[in-house]
């Protein structure tokens, strides 16, 4: 019987999903009290509605210092789908580095806006232009719709770089959860199809393997945010229940036979996460194949903890790391350009522009 698993009488039916003696970091454990999870996790409409509702109810995003705009898809010179662009207002002269960011949601849920927070913060703090496509979702649009949208967005960024004020020599990709699978797949495809050069791939608790054959996938059947049951449903929706034996590596990056000649990588993994072991394996294979890879595993965490509870101590460390690595990539690409300091986590950096409160959003 899972420790403390049964809700006390009179408590709301919000899920407290803890498995056995799993200890979560204090701030993450507390945050579970405010999860809004539909009772039936496999009810797609309920999940989608929940995301929409919570997005609408979230704190208004009004960051002075970052300009957010949407570019519609479907036009001849435009991106394949709507993309949301986050651009730092007080950027130095010249082309800016760019990050293609893919949001998560098991290939079926959410929308670009869901990661407004991290995209805005990275734009402001790292001095990048963030581009987040609202890629098509399964089951209505199964593979390869999502990866096609994402990859074509990359191609569009590279082709339109000058017009958009982007530096084509400094494009990075990143994504969370299923977005991580898309990011990894984009890198594989760019390698195989001689596409745009990518300087870095940031994979945050990424999905990678439809075979779901790992100890963590087998163990974590009832963990917060994501579990094995949802993983199985995710792959069924994305690839169909009747899968061919040879699933494309653009769908499941772990299927790639070779991980050589890929961009440097930064991988974050969570502990009580069914995706943990496949992500660790992917990172090890990246390393073995000779790619410059950083890997940070966090104990006492659930899937996508850094995005779900961005204020926790552990999440601040992850953010600090993202900042550091993005700045380093930027400096490597343009060594003579000044790298402005931004707001760092836990007071590690001194704010130069966009100081902590006056230029940032106040509560509404």
């Amino acid at each position, binding site marked *: 019987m899972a*420790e*403390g698993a049964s809700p006390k009488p*009179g*408590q*709301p039916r*919000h899920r*407290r999903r803890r498995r056995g*003696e799993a*200890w*979560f*970091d*204090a*701030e993450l*454990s*507390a*945050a*579970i*009290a*405010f*999860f*809004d*999870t539909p009772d039936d996790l496999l009810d797609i409409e309920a999940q989608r509605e*929940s*995301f929409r509702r*919570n*997005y609408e*109810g*979230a*704190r208004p995003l009004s960051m002075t210092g970052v300009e957010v705009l949407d570019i519609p898809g479907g036009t001849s010179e435009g991106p394949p789908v709507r993309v949301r662009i986050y651009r730092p207002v007080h950027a130095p002269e010249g082309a800016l580095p760019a990050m293609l960011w893919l*949001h*998560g*949601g098991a290939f079926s*849920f*959410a929308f670009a*806006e*869901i*990661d*407004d*927070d991290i995209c805005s913060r990275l734009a402001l703090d790292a001095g990048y232009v963030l581009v987040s496509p609202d890629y098509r979702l399964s089951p209505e649009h199964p593979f390869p719709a999502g990866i096609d949208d994402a990859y074509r967005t990359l191609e569009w960024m590279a082709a339109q770089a000058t017009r958009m004020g982007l530096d084509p020599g400094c494009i990075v990709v990143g994504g*969370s959860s299923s977005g991580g699978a898309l990011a990894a797949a984009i890198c594989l495809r760019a390698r195989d199809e001689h596409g745009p050069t990518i300087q870095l791939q940031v994979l945050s608790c990424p999905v990678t393997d439809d075979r779901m054959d790992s100890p963590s996938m087998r163990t974590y059947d009832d963990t917060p*945010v994501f579990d094995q049951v949802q993983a199985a449903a995710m792959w069924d929706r994305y690839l169909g229940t009747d899968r061919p034996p040879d699933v494309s590596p653009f769908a499941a990056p772990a299927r790639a036979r070779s991980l050589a000649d890929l961009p440097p990588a930064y991988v974050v993994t969570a502990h009580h996460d069914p995706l943990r072991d496949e992500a660790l394996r992917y990172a090890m294979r990246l390393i073995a194949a000779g790619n410059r890879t950083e890997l940070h595993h966090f104990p006492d965490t659930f899937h996508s903890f850094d*995005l*779900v*509870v*961005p*204020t*926790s*101590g552990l*999440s*601040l460390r992850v953010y600090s790391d993202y900042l550091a690595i993005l700045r380093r990539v930027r400096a490597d690409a343009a060594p003579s350009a000044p790298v402005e300091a931004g*707001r760092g*986590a*836990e*007071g590690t950096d001194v704010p130069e522009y966009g*100081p*902590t*409160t*006056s230029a940032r959003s*106040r*509560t509404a």
Partner: protein
Amino acid sequence: MRGLLLRLSALDPDAGASLRLIDYYDELLASRASLDAIVRATAAIAECTAGVRDDQAGHVTRIDLHGIRSPAVMAPVVAEQKVLVEGAPVGRVWLERDQSHAFDEMVIERMALTVAARWAARSATARPGDPALVELVISETSSEEDRHRAVRLLGFTPDRHLRVLAAWSNRGADLAGAVRMLSTGMADSGGSLARAVVMGERAAILEQSSQSTEEIRKVVGGVTDGTASIGVGPRVPAGRARESWVGAATAARFVSVWPRAEGPVAFEELGAIACLADVPREVALVNSDVQILEQHAGRTSGRLDVETLLAFVRDGSLRTAAEHQHMHHSSIANRLRHIEEALGIGLDDPAGRVRAQTAAILWGLNTMGPSPGT
């Protein structure tokens, strides 16, 4: 990720939202959140800067809603409260925002309670009511209700696991002092909450933290100075604390016998060997092998022979036993030969070795160290 968390300020101030907030702070407490974590978590849920002042340390911590420390801008204080530990004010907590929100009072109240509990837990000194409550928790005859209540009153989280340590006083040494050192040591190194009772020559320490048996064993081993023999019980649900106590008490008896040369013994490491402690004393002492060892130990230098056999049981090789006994390995071999002659057993023979080892453990359990019985 703007999609998973509900926002407190957007919820109706009905029972559901209040319960979530209580749950939020209960979790922080149960997970032994650091002070920084409590302040960050408050700032996050209240969506504004939260602050705490520790009067004892003369220290102020302010963190904003993004987790940034000491934000330059100070907004007006919309809610504040003193932090009381055992009735005495030891600090204060507050929220800074341009306007107040419906939940501010409740948030600050919860924050004050959580900070107070955090500061109370860092004190390892015994409070007057503790010993009786600890005894209640481990007693055979307590009702489930009384046990549960005692666990709560002691400051533990009833629906989490805890473990019990047993401390036997060696040769009448100051047990209370050793217990105090142990409790403080466990609190300092691993954030344990430790509450103890001294019952004559033996003491029980209840401990709750996320440390593994091995980690606890190491901490305890580092802190004790040989004045007490310590047994470490298994981690159990709080309601089954007695099981852990019984295991710890058994393990303590093995301190000079098995399986490690120094330091505390963990019940989990004993496995089947623990059963030897259940052999009644009278039965053990009438066994001919054990009698022979007892008689041999009574002779000049005979005791050293038997202790050498015990060392050999523990260490498995002449060389290792020699190192630990600070003897030459030929001296060890000599002494073991005496034992072989006395018992009429060859230690090279596997059957003989098991027999001699068992006899040694039974002799050690029943003639050295603490006697059984809880």
